[in-house]
């Protein structure tokens, strides 16, 4: 008897989502889908607004990484106001934005590791769901819980002192930034009382990474075996191939490491990327145009970034990068759960970069904004914590926005998440008549590895709520499981 399994809600970038899994007559998984069930309509309702509102308007898509949207919009507007892309800003303008961005990567990655994934690692992924959450971590590992909270706090304070507010800041403006860093602010981050100083953050980031590596060595077979499949990978890289989360050229590699998008300028990203619309989800499915829908989909985020870049431009993270790359003999890493490892290497890298920036006297200078000749179209890309983020705007002679196109990080991971869900569902549910908690948690873990945006917030406070319903072929509910 053919059946359908529904898992809902899975929370996501634009609200809630759910999973449906269709089983055929032999109880094998025939099809699985991750549906995104909310719709906002930003593309349309920002039309007619003055362009300079975009960085503060569009970040309200997402309160989890608003800095990414704030800066991607600002970068697109840099082009529009004639300040150029990337290095067209003043040193202070670009470096203040970089500090804001790496502060956000740091807080977001810390949040994801400590609040979201650590319950699975510290308490066991098969632990009682009632304690498998951040409260369980706080009660059983109070020192580690405090580290997580304080690392997130440090990142949030960096954001507050660069963007003006912790959530939905106002610091980046077209062509630059509206404040520099004072000596007092700088010294607070460099030499603040423990634990809120940058050296402590580097130490703790490193210890989180060492903890995960230890866990990996003990559980290598399980971690490697969980949802691995070949895919393309896409991200920005610096012109010399270095990892750069704020600016660069677009590069994509295939599962073997061959470059399939060779360091192109992102201003005409629409020549390379296209999106498919499917009737069952509000989230579109991007793919590389020249490879087509079937073969052109790709992953973004920490896993993809460490597959596309050639090296990491900070010493401690580079050392860790070499150890990480050795596991796959330098080839692209296609193991879903290795995303956690890659994310922690980026956490350490972000802390190192913040220290370099804080020691840079350019942050204290007062030349904040660049100007040029206005044009009517601009594209801004950056690497958000969860992957490549695309903002594209057109304006008219009245400075009103006439077109906005956004491809957010989690949208880029739409097909990979569906693939992962399918992989895990086939392995865990095929041939089974009943859904158990461990099966459900495996589906959660497959989605969770991508740190999809709103579920990140859900996880920030505990674990992802799932509601699984099983239907027979006629649509009658035959089993119902709630976490």
């Amino acid at each position, binding site marked *: 008897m053919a059946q359908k399994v*529904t898992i809902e809600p899975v*929370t996501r970038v634009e*609200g*809630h989502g759910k999973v*449906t899994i269709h089983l055929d007559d032999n109880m094998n998984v025939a099809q699985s889908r991750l*549906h995104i*069930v*909310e*719709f*906002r*309509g930003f*593309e*349309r*309702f920002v*039309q007619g607004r003055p362009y300079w509102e975009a960085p503060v*308007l569009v970040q*309200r*898509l*997402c*309160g*989890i990484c608003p800095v990414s949207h704030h800066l991607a919009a600002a970068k697109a507007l840099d082009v529009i106001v004639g300040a150029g892309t990337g290095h067209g800003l003043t040193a202070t303008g670009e470096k203040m934005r970089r500090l804001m961005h790496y502060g956000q990567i740091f807080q977001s990655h810390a949040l994801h590791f400590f609040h979201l994934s650590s319950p699975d690692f510290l308490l066991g992924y098969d632990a009682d769901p*009632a304690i498998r*959450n*951040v*409260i369980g971590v*706080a009660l059983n590992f109070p020192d580690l*819980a*405090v580290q997580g*909270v*304080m690392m997130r*706090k440090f990142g949030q304070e960096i954001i507050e002192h660069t963007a003006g*507010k*912790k*959530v*939905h800041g106002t610091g980046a403006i077209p062509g630059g930034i509206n404040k520099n860093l004072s000596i007092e602010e700088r010294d607070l981050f460099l030499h603040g009382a423990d634990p809120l100083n940058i050296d402590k953050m580097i130490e703790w980031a490193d210890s989180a990474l060492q903890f995960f590596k230890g866990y990996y060595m003990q559980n290598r077979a399980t971690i490697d075996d969980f949802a691995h499949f070949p895919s393309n990978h896409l991200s920005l890289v610096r012109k010399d191939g270095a990892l750069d989360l704020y600016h660069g050229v677009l590069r994509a590699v295939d599962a073997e490491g061959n470059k399939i998008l060779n360091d192109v300028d992102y201003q005409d990203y*629409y020549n390379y990327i*296209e999106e*498919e*619309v*499917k*009737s*069952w*989800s*509000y989230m*579109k499915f*991007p793919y590389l145009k020249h490879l087509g829908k079937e073969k052109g989909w790709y992953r973004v985020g920490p896993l993809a970034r460490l597959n596309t870049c050639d090296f990491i431009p900070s010493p401690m993270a580079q050392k860790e990068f070499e150890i990480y790359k050795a596991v796959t003999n330098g080839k692209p890493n296609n193991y879903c759960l290795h995303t956690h490892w890659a994310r922690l290497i980026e956490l350490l890298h972000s802390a190192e970069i913040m220290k370099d920036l804080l020691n840079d006297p350019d942050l204290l200078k007062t030349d904040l904004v660049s100007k040029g000749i206005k044009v009517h179209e601009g594209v801004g890309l950056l690497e958000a914590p969860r992957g490549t983020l695309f903002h594209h705007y057109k304006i008219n002679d009245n400075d009103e926005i006439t077109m906005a*196109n956004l*491809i957010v990080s989690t949208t880029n991971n739409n097909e990979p998440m569906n693939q992962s869900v399918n992989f895990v569902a086939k392995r865990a549910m095929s041939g089974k008549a009943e859904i158990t908690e461990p099966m459900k948690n495996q589906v959660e873990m497959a989605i969770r590895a991508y740190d999809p*945006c*709103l579920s990140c*917030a859900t*996880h*920030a*406070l*505990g*674990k*992802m*709520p799932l509601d699984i319903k099983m239907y027979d072929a006629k649509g009658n509910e035959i089993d119902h499981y*709630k*976490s």
Partner: protein
Amino acid sequence: MSKPIIATTSLAGCFGCHMSILDIDDRILQLIELVEFNKSPIDDIKTFTKQCDIGIIEGGCCNSENVHVLKEFRKNCKILISLGECAIMGGLPAMRNGIPVKECLEEAYWGGPTVGLNTEKIMPNDPELPMILDKVYPCHEIVKIDYYLPGCAPRADLIWAAVVALVTGDELNIPYELVKFD
């Protein structure tokens, strides 16, 4: 006396208000001491298991599912708080209220420079997707709301002061500069 019970949810919001709750930083450990959590992302109780004292709502209502969840909260919570601009007045998502939904959908799925191949004019319309409402509604237009905490997002110190006052019964003393209407 048993601890007061709190439930929270995010409707048509961006989760920024929940992030601001997290911005109470290490006071979160005190909060766990002060209150018990029921239906909330914090402990993943998906449906109410008992009557709650305080329900905190982020976001307004943009689809049928939001309305359903909000009514559940009213039924199960003695006090409801609208947290942030979206819950209080629809917020940024309500910018679509002056525009027909059809136009928003057409722009998102048929317009733009990267959906060129959607020649069949596919539009998300699956029965699995909840119904979009004609407008984004603030929470108090759907159910009775008892308290409002403004801001986008409300500052962590404001949330902390309000929750502590409610659960301890102490007089609410919020400094003027903590209340923002951004």
